[in-house]
């Protein structure tokens, strides 16, 4: 049997003496999509950052496809889309994609293709500064997807996006899943997340209080999860 796409084994993260993550452990098989839920400050961003190698766990270990996160080959296969777009305002769309692409070894043809896919070809040489919020978000998606990552880490990707932008992103995510990529996304917009997810995890003050299949109840009722598994407070 092959290694799991993501394996967290007893991950703790301390900020000083305060544990933002407490003994988080789960495994995700390739091709699955995990919706990471939790109230403000539950530790979603912290967990995603550790999975993406942006931050080290204080205790415990994370393995991506059986390898260390900080190994260069592992990171070459991760796509990261954080809260912010991660693009340079003074460079053009094409230059942005090329810069990041160069680090992953993405060819120029692929970049042109992606510009088309997110419908930015006509403005590909204008600086990103002039883009509207929607356009920026689309470019950020292209940036995170262009090297064909096998693991996608997305932190609240739907926040302050309008319906059209959400639709585009959902389409791309479905496509990625179909091609076998693993996806982890954190969000407060439970409805949007449930439509994509195959697994659901609930963090409560750093503890993973629920991890399992997405059920029909969750799809139907946004409050269900918190009521069932969340702490009373």
């Amino acid at each position, binding site marked *: 049997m092959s290694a799991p796409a993501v394996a967290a084994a007893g991950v703790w993260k301390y*900020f000083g003496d305060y544990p933002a993550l407490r003994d988080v452990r789960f495994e995700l098989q390739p091709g699955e999509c995990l919706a990471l839920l939790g109230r403000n400050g539950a530790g979603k961003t912290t967990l995603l950052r550790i999975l993406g190698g942006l931050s080290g766990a204080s205790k415990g270990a994370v393995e991506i496809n059986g390898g260390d996160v900080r190994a260069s080959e592992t990171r070459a296969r991760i796509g990261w889309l954080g809260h912010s777009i991660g693009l340079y305002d003074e460079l053009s769309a094409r230059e942005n994609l090329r810069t990041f692409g160069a680090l992953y070894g993405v060819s120029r043809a692929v970049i042109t293709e992606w510009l088309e896919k997110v419908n930015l070809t006509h403005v590909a040489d204008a600086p990103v500064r002039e883009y509207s919020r929607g356009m920026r978000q689309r470019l950020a998606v292209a940036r995170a997807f262009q090297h064909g990552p096998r693991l996608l880490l997305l932190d609240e990707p739907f926040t302050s996006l309008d319906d059209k932008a959400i639709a585009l992103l959902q389409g791309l995510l479905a496509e990625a899943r179909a091609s076998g990529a693993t996806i982890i996304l954190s969000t407060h917009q439970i409805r949007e997340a449930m439509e994509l997810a195959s697994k659901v995890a609930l963090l409560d003050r750093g503890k993973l209080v629920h991890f399992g299949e997405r059920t029909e109840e969750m799809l139907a009722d946004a409050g269900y999860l918190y009521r069932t598994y969340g702490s009373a407070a």
Partner: protein
Amino acid sequence: MRRKVILALGAVALPLLLRNLYVIMFLVPDEMEQGPIYRIFYYHLPAFFTAALCYLTAMVTSILYLAKKDPKYDAIAVSATETGLAFAAVNLITGMIWGRISWGIWWAWDPRLTWALICWIMYFGYLMLRSAIDDPTERAKNSAVLSIFASASVAVTWKAIEWWRTQHPGPVLSIRTGGVQKIDPMMEQMLYVNTIALVLLAVIFVLVRLRQEEVQREIDALRRYAHAMN
């Protein structure tokens, strides 16, 4: 346990300091040229040795912190740095008083004086960097790195002194002059004895400060817990 250690060290250090003060004031001979003011020397140089020892401790524990990520080392590093700053201040201030009396000015842009000041500012910057970072883990890591940088350039400055004309007296201790006796052996011996006293004092400071640091960390964590409950 640590309380007892502190008390025991205190029980040794305090009498020693008092005895040294007595000896320095009344027993050691006057220096030929400078008269009584030279007695400040018995604090001037030992204070610097103590400070240098503290900086060294800070460097070692900073490296250990980066290697082991144990907050204990970070706590020792801050405590040592703060203590070191206090003793370096004693060195600077006694030097300035001395200078005021024997050179007639408070300060000269003499390399050794200047480097002493640079070190002081550098470690003061270390403390400021700490106070500016909220996340304790990040604070520990970044300041450990800065401490290593600072100590590296302290070493560079140490070497640089050798290439420079200087108004400040050169080495007088026989261990640094290669066995040449430049001062009365009794003076030199007294110097070592007082160094021991000051180092003991510094150890006490570090231990007390360490306790404070640990309590502070606990309080921080509890406060975060309390806030997370909301």
